[in-house]
């Protein structure tokens, strides 16, 4: 067994932030999965590691809306799992590669699908060689809706 469910929560109330803590260095990669119900738009789904709120993250994204494509890149205070332009249900996954390795900055690959908005692929870097022990997910505006399921998996 190399793909292990570590933690899952289904929100009983709307929340702007969810944190997975005390993550052991047992695995090779982590995978975060968000399956969100429709609700007030959240703009950006952010990821932070080890409570780092500095501008130590960078991303590049690729997006298609059905009528156009776009790509952007930036350095900012969080990694990005996806941009949610509207209020429809959405799903995002993030692959946090070599999360516990102390010889590398951390690379995060993400895919996002929004029922009425867009489809995206993203690549992020956290410029820190520390092992990741905490993963925080947050919304830029509003909250993750009630009923949203967020899961953390470890890959051996």
């Amino acid at each position: 067994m190399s793909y292990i469910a570590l933690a899952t929560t289904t929100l009983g109330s709307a929340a702007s932030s969810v944190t997975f803590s005390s993550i052991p260095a047992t695995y090779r990669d982590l995978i975060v999965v968000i399956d969100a119900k429709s609700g007030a738009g959240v703009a950006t789904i952010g990821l932070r590691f080890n409570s780092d709120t500095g501008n130590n993250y960078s991303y590049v994204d690729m997006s298609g809306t059905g009528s156009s494509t776009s790509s952007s890149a930036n350095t900012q205070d969080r990694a990005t799992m996806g941009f949610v332009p509207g209020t429809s249900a959405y799903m995002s996954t993030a692959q946090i590669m070599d999360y516990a390795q102390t010889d590398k900055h951390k690379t995060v690959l993400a895919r996002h699908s929004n029922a009425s908005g867009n489809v995206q692929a993203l690549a992020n870097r956290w410029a820190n060689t520390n092992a990741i022990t905490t993963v925080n997910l947050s919304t830029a505006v509003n909250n993750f809706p009630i009923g949203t399921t967020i899961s953390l998996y470890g890959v051996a």
Partner: protein
Amino acid sequence: MPIPLGILAAAGFRPSAAGAYDLLESTVLTGNQLSVSFTNLATKYAATYQHLQLRVVTRDTFTGGDGSTVLMRFNGDSGNNYSFHFLEGNGSSVLSKNGVSTSRIIFQQSSNGNWSADVIDILDPFETTKNKTTRILCGAPTVPYVGLLSGNWRNTAQITSILLQTEGFNLAQGSRFSLYGIRSA
């Protein structure tokens, strides 16, 4: 309000018994080198696994700029028996590229001390009724680059080996290549 969550996988946590996704082999480079190979795959895994997945974190040793490529070949075939298609974002625009009847499948990696990552799915590698299809999610955020790639190897033989080789400078120490199997039902 943040909701701190504990972790289920503390000592004593028991995952479900019937797993379908297994780590088969993993290599972390202890020095710089040109390539990595996985061999004898059909012999070892065809009876048990339906699909393969490679999870890769890599960079090359070039320090004069950021970005190079890694090639992937099967069974030592260096003939023009591959095709690939990219959909990629570079931070300012989305591009689509292809290679038709080429000698390898390629994907992006980082250089200049920066790391990149890839998740590579190889579907039905041991089926002898199909040419082989691959799918890659590739990210080199410092280049900047993110890509969705598809690859095709026009050969119905079982995949017995996978070669991953840098097309730039050597693969750097610390690069990691892990092979996983997804079980047949």
